[in-house]
């Protein structure tokens, strides 16, 4: 008995020590040909493994694409850009350590954000401690701005009200066509929960009955059981709070198995990841699935068209296959470029002060103008939908949108 307990204990302790040894690995990439002037070092913590690895890879591509384009145009202040990335394994703790390393050990001149609000909030605190600006593209949750740090600037859409176009569209439907019930499963993440809670509050106010609301840990092994519970409710609308593709694909598979096809299926993230999303759910199980965002590969924005062309030239694929994370990261670089050029400096204090002046900047995602909290007030919320393997803008109506596929097509089309 004792020996078995001791063995179990030793196994447990050793396993814990092993788990603790998981460490971040680093990589760096040069922005282009060397010049005589010392390059500007820009650092970021990115998820190259773990839950957000697909997003992290896309962000890395976006940052690298921006650096390549900017270096080709002469760099920043005549100096080449050198990017340094550290892998955070999708862990907030590792992300904070990485930013300390970037600032104190790597001595980067500027920092740019990681992927997800979950990692951005603690990372911004570290950057603030050292008076660094943190321009970021994937930290739009209220929790990022709740601490009221003056150094964080999110170039993307604030997430809290990102589902508003979908809610307004439901409100615009005649009573006879308006879905009567909705289910609201959401992962326990600062990015997803505020969006889903907002949608629940607004839709129920419109008279749509909430038949399911549960917060779940985003672990793939639990998805099927939760999706089956949702399917059993037969809600007309499913608003899924997801941060990553596996959650959306898990729900999709379980819905198909349960012969359940909601009239509206919208996820907070996942379907915006282009080819990676299609790879996970298949080319026949995406029709009608929606996602809120501020950008899509077919955006008419000239800067966006140029970036998409660059991206396809380098990585191949189609415009619909370009991950929205690429545009978010690229926008970070563009905003940083404009701040550096406007201040003629890489002084973080000057950049912070400039970005707080209420100036309107331009990015591939559209205009950027920050409020005192660092939220982008100029961003416009759109809703996109997969229609016959094309990712198209459907909401708000007009302004380049095509008609919403409603009710969504059956699975397997």
């Amino acid at each position, binding site marked *: *008995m004792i*020996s*078995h*307990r001791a*063995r*179990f204990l*030793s*196994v447990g302790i*050793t*396993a814990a020590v*092993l788990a603790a040894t998981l460490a971040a690995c680093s990589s760096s990439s040069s922005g282009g040909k060397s010049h005589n002037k010392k390059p500007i070092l820009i650092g970021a913590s990115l998820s*190259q*493994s*773990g*839950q957000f*690895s*697909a997003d*992290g*890879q896309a962000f890395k591509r976006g940052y690298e694409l921006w650096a390549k384009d900017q270096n080709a145009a002469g760099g920043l202040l005549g100096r080449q850009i050198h990017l340094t990335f550290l892998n955070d394994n999708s862990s907030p703790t590792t992300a904070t350590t990485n930013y300390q390393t970037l600032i104190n050990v790597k001595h980067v001149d500027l920092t740019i954000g990681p992927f997800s609000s979950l990692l951005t909030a603690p990372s911004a605190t570290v950057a603030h401690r050292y008076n660094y600006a943190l321009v970021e593209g994937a930290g739009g949750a209220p929790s990022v701005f709740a601490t009221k740090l003056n150094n964080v600037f999110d170039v993307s859409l604030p997430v809290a009200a990102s589902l508003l176009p979908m809610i307004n569209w439901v409100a615009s439907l005649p009573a006879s066509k308006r879905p009567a019930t909705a289910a609201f499963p959401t992962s*326990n993440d600062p990015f997803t929960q505020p969006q889903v809670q907002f949608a629940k509050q607004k839709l129920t106010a419109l008279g749509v009955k909430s038949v399911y609301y*549960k*917060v*779940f*840990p985003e*672990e*793939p*092994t*639990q998805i*099927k*059981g*939760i999706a*089956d*519970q949702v399917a*059993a409710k037969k809600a007309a609308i499913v608003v899924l709070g997801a941060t*990553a*593709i*596996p959650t959306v*694909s*898990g729900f999709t*598979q379980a819905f*198909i*198995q*349960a*012969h359940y096809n909601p009239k509206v299926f919208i996820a907070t993230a996942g379907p915006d990841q282009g080819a*990676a999303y299609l*790879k*996970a*759910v*298949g080319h026949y*199980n995406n029709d009608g699935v929606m996602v809120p965002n501020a950008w899509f590969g077919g955006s008419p924005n000239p800067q966006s068209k140029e970036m998409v062309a660059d991206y396809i030239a380098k990585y191949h694929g189609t415009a619909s296959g370009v991950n929205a994370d690429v545009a978010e990261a690229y926008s970070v670089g563009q905003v940083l470029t404009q701040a550096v050029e406007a201040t003629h400096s890489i002084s973080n204090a000057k950049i912070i002060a400039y970005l707080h002046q209420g100036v309107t900047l331009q990015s591939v995602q559209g205009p950027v103008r920050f409020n005192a909290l660092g939220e982008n007030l100029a961003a416009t919320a759109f809703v996109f939908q997969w229609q016959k393997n094309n990712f198209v803008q459907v909401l708000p109506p007009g302004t380049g949108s095509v008609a919403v596929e409603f009710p969504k097509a059956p*699975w*397997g089309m």
Partner: protein
Amino acid sequence: MAQFLQAVVDGVLGGAVYALMAAGLTLIFGVMDIINIAQGILVVLAAYLSYALSVHLHIDPLLGLLITVPAMFVLGVAIEWAFMRRLRGRERVAMSLLVSYAVAVIIEGALYQAFGSTPVGYLPSYAIKSVHIFGFYLPYIYLIGFGLAAAALAAIYLMLYRTKFGRSVRATMQDKVAARLVGINVDRVAALTFGIGVAVTAAGGMVFGATNTFNPDSGYDLISRLLSIVILGGLGSIAGALVAALFMVTAEEIVNIWQPTWATAVYYAVLVIVLLVRPTGLLGKREARAQ
């Protein structure tokens, strides 16, 4: 009530898949006293093999088991020969953790190189189709997983208790020195057992890949669950792994109905409570494990 029954159905079907993935882990520990931390990544590797056969060679994943099972068997024998056989002495169990962790890291790195970090999946028709019985939709892939689990566990049981090789395995489980003295080639038994354990994982990996989107990181989430299943069932007990997997996954699914955020905590709370009452696990036999 319908929700509760749905959770039980999901728990039983999902639990069988976990038992299939955990069978190799408990078999290997039973014979060799090795905690194979690499089991999680081996499941993922098997899923990637099925993915590669399905997507690139258009071979149905189920049919592909004719290729992946022997391939994983050979890999298992190679891992035992290259890494595990070298472990000697009193610290063997603890050292096996480190060595198998190193194996896991090597395989994970190779998978990153080969497939990248973007999650992938494969959806053969039976992964999305289901049969409607008594008001419940039972996905074919889970029924296949249940069948494979039953077949694999029965085959392991028959091998252990109805064959000459099984007698050698059991003798090795009870006392390696005595087994060696009566002429059993303990090294050969260990290599074959490790190979069989990893080969069974091929089936678990195929079902895992058809029911989940995965990337090389997916092994970490798996190994913690697989370890807790084999510890709860009783290290070395095949039947224990089945009972523990069904019990724990069903408990988790039932908790999901009320409070999904508590489901994982309950999963591990059950493990701790059972071990406090019965430190050898549900079906573990201390005497059989004494070396």
